[in-house]
């Protein structure tokens, strides 16, 4: 059954709150595996009825669910080892909220009803808030307050947008179920004025959660202040889930024949995000904040790719997969460094490669990947987006896109080189590098590598199905 992917983590999550710490860790890991099992079942369509009143398995949802499930296995593995080395007084709360967060995100990926989708997205905000402020430091409280308030207000605007979309149906005197799949079928009959208004509100609303500029202000704070596993999950999985809302609405606009309008809106937001992150990454003093700004950049790239459509949309989908893998790997490596150095300041973290060889290598490799160099997949996806943009004749977009990429690479490279090769004043190591914590980031990077060289046919076919609704296949 499709709903199992969110019901099981929900029950497990609530149970973990009341279980002893050690049992809680076992439940966390086993739920991750069970979740992966059900996701595989859904991916290969081995289960019974696939469409219910509120849920369905759309190709884009399945793609994100697969990414989420895969990431969660390794992040929960990391969490277990991480927890045994840091002392966290409220560990059951943390593990429980991780599972509830997984449940909410899984619900986002399979939700079909417009308002149910909204409910699930809001639930992700609420379930992840405790993860961020679990340490109760002044900074983490500030980050949580910004996160909860800005995202809740943003998502409330998305609800308004949903009402507009529903009204565009009612005013044309059509009555179908208010789910995305039924709306696609009748999209041409919807009232274009209200649909456009709804789209704008939905992009602003869910875009707040995606971290699109200028609504991104919560993102660097939340991603940098939360504990490592939460940062990895926020950056690797949550942003994608929020993006699904923007994407589904874009699909609807496309079906209604307003694709050009929504494409332009998406490209504008995407370019703004890239430029903002290019400016703020230059003088960053904190390496987790640097990674957070890089997430804003990458979500901008994905938005632009989807906006351009065709070849670029294929690139954007690849970008989603590889960005999730590489960025969570980077956040996990950053977490290892944070444990070792006890500080997030770039100035005080020199000689990573010498002091922490394993983490140093994964961090450096991750940086190479995130900057879009071969052999990692972001090289291909960014190339496809650029080619797609040129083919579509969007030369201004391409120039700003490449300019921002160069600026971001230059800014981040300076910081990363300093961290990796510059010598530190004192070689004091708080927690030494250990294999169990170094392994999950390595596996995530290797997965990205493998998917670059060999993309399984079922993933390829899924991506084709996803983008067929926004401007067709990529061949040609």
């Amino acid at each position, binding site marked *: 059954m499709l709903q199992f992917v969110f019901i099981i983590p929900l029950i497990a999550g609530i149970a973990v709150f009341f279980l002893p710490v050690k049992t809680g860790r076992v439940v966390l890991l086993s739920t991750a595996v069970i979740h992966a099992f059900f996701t595989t079942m859904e991916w290969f369509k081995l289960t019974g009825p696939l469409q219910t009143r509120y849920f369905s398995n759309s190709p884009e949802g399945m793609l994100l669910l697969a990414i989420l499930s895969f990431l969660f296995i390794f992040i929960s593995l990391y969490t277990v080892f991480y927890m045994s080395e840091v002392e966290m007084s409220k560990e059951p709360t943390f593990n429980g909220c991780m599972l509830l967060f997984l449940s909410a995100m899984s619900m986002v990926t399979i939700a079909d*009803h417009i308002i149910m989708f909204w*409910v699930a997205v809001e639930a992700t905000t609420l379930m992840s808030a405790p993860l961020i*402020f679990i340490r*109760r430091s002044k900074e983490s*409280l500030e980050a949580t307050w910004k996160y909860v308030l800005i995202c809740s207000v943003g998502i*409330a605007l998305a609800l308004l947008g949903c009402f507009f979309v*529903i*009204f565009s149906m009612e005013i044309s*005197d059509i009555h179908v179920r208010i789910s995305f799949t039924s709306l696609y079928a009748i999209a041409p009959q919807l009232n274009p004025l*209200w649909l456009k208004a709804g789209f704008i509100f939905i992009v602003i609303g869910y875009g707040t959660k995606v971290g699109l500029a200028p609504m991104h202000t919560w993102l660097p704070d939340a991603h940098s202040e939360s504990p490592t596993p939460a940062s990895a999950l926020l950056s690797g999985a949550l942003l994608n889930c929020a993006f699904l809302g923007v994407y589904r609405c874009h699909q609807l606009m496309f079906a209604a024949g307003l694709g050009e309008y929504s494409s332009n809106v998406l490209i504008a937001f995407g370019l703004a995000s890239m430029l903002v992150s290019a400016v703020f990454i230059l003088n960053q003093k904190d390496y987790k904040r640097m990674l957070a700004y890089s997430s804003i950049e990458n979500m901008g790239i994905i938005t632009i790719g989807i906006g351009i459509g065709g070849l670029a949309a294929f690139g954007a989908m690849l970008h989603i997969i590889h960005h999730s893998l590489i960025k969570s790997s980077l956040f996990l490596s950053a977490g290892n460094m944070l444990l070792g150095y006890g500080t997030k300041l770039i100035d005080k973290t020199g000689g990573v490669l010498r002091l922490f060889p394993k983490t140093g290598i994964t961090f450096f490799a991750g940086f190479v990947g995130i900057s879009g160099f071969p052999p990692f997949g972001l090289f291909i996806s960014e190339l496809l987006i650029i080619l797609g943009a040129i083919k579509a004749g969007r030369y201004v977009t391409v120039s700003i896109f490449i300019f921002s990429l160069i600026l971001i690479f230059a800014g981040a490279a300076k910081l990363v080189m300093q961290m990796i090769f510059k010598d530190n004043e004192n070689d004091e190591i708080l927690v030494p590098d250990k294999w169990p914590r170094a392994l999950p980031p390595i596996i995530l990077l290797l997965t990205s590598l493998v998917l670059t060289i060999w993309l399984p046919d079922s993933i390829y076919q899924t991506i084709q199905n996803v983008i067929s609704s926004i401007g067709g296949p990529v061949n040609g």
Partner: protein
Amino acid sequence: MHISNIFLAMILLSVLLSLKSNRLAALVKLVAFQGIVVSAVPLVLNTAHGLSFSLIMFFLILVLVKGLLIPALMFIAVNKVVTSREIEPIIGYHASLFAGLIMIVLSVYITNSLHSINYPIYIANHPHLADFAANHKLLLVTGITTMGSGLILLMTRRKAITQVIGYLMMENGIYLIGTALAKVVHAQYVVEFAVLLDLLVAVLVMGIVLNNINHTFDDVDTALLGQLKD
């Protein structure tokens, strides 16, 4: 005059009062009152079509959550705070009241222009709804004003509690706009419950964070939250 207009007038009054009020306890009472009236609006609008059992049940649950549970959670937070007044808002009380009045004018303008574009088609399609559509107009005005004033409260006040109240007002406004525009949603109780549950959990989470902020900083002034910058 339709009875719903009295309810809408009461909502507008509570919006204006909350823009002028500086005592946190009074604000919580206002938002509780507003929550109850807002929950009653669908009930009142539907009197022509007769009241169903499910509609009344749903009204009772709405009142329980918006008028009782959420304000109770807010009162717990207010009681723990040392200074129970809003001090030095970013925009003064008279100015915010004035902004609220402008918001009413603005929403009348927005509603009128929307009506002139869209409603002729709508009423042509549903002639029996002409009366309902006229009521809608005021409903939409009230909804937009409530939402806008909530945003004003959210952005111009420093106390975290007032910001939560601004958020609740905004949510009330969106609920009213939803009542005016998307009738289908209100007929689907599962969805409505889910939205309501989200709101309740949101206030719960905000309350927990609020308590922690109060504990760590000895106040809930968001001006104290300014360490994370670029």
